[in-house]
């Protein structure tokens, strides 16, 4: 009887460990954007998009409804998508942000699992672009794009498989509105072009 209890406890612990491990594995393509929070006050424009869970399912259902070949292509490219998190900060002046903040994001991408797909460095605008991918076996589990320039930062974290080539090809073909971000205290209603 005593051994039975011991075996039961071992089984419970093993089950909990496995469940925790599975949960951790599913989330490890997620980047932590906490360091970028402080930039909101400094930035002229901020774009923050978080799409996951039910919201993403809802959007996918809409993609199916749209009777447009481009939308169908996009729908196909994002069929396995689990989440997209986007942060874009535009600044008024050069070097208004702390480079350590964006380097912290890049350091997260040095962890095991992430593989560098592309690395662009340009002295023009002090531009640095990094594209990383993460694979679980043969299946893509995440993409991260980090773009830093003199006056702007953009971090994109895609979780789940996505067709990068198709998405790059579809650039400019999305039927989305041009947006403009305004500061909290700005009550101006004039559109800026």
């Amino acid at each position, binding site marked *: 009887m005593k051994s039975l209890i011991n075996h039961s406890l071992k089984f419970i612990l093993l089950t909990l460990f496995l469940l925790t491990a599975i949960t951790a594995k599913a989330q490890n393509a997620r980047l932590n954007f906490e360091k970028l929070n402080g930039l909101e006050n400094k930035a002229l424009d901020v774009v923050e998009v978080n799409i996951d869970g039910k919201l993403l399912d809802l959007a996918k259902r809409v993609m199916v409804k749209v009777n447009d070949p481009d939308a169908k292509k996009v729908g196909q490219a994002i069929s396995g998508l689990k989440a997209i998190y986007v942060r874009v900060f535009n600044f008024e002046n050069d070097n208004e942000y702390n480079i350590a903040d964006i380097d912290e994001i890049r350091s997260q991408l040095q962890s095991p699992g992430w593989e560098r797909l592309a690395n662009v460095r340009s002295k023009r605008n002090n531009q640095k672009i990094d594209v990383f991918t993460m694979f679980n076996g043969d299946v893509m589990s995440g993409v991260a794009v980090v773009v830093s320039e003199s006056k702007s930062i953009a971090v994109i974290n895609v979780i789940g498989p996505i067709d990068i080539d198709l998405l790059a090809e579809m650039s400019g073909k999305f039927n989305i509105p041009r*947006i403009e971000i305004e500061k909290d205290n700005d009550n101006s209603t004039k559109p800026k072009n």
Partner: protein
Amino acid sequence: MKEDYLWDKTGTDPEIESLENALGKFCYQKTAPPLLPAKVFPFRKEPSRKIYLFALTAAAACLVFAVLGLGLWLKFSSNHSAGNLAEVVAAPNDAASANEPMVEIPNDLRDKSQKVPVIKKVKTSSKFTEEKFVRIRQAVPVIHYQTKAQNSTTTDLNARLTKEERYAYDQLMLALSITSSKLKLVKDKVEGKTEQTAFFKNAR
């Protein structure tokens, strides 16, 4: 029976003497006291079978609750973002826009004559940023490369979509647009298209 013998053993009393002889073997004999054992074992009551069964049942119940709890946690954590949909608030830009729908509608899904509403605050679903407020204003109604057929399609779509669906679609398109533009930028850089374009521009 002489009672003197019984009390002070004076004289003789054969009856009492016979009794003494018979019971003499049970009398106290002065010998060494018994030795204590080297180790004293405390009394331990063996747990009953009921306790084992109770422990086993409790362990099984714990396992079931742990699995159920994990399942519920995963479910609600994935539902969290959908719950924030209702927290999109229309800004009081002017009297008319205050009555606008609370959810942003893509411009290509909107009638041009309509005033553009403003999303004032969007509570995000990020785990790391509990409350973020982003103000997004649609500046220019843009219908870039749409044909009449596409316009009619989107108008039909507009009629069919709920506010939540429009919001979700809009957010996804925004995210995909930013993602695709950055990926395109990288692709062009890697393929050297930017340099070529710059070269041709300079050549002109």
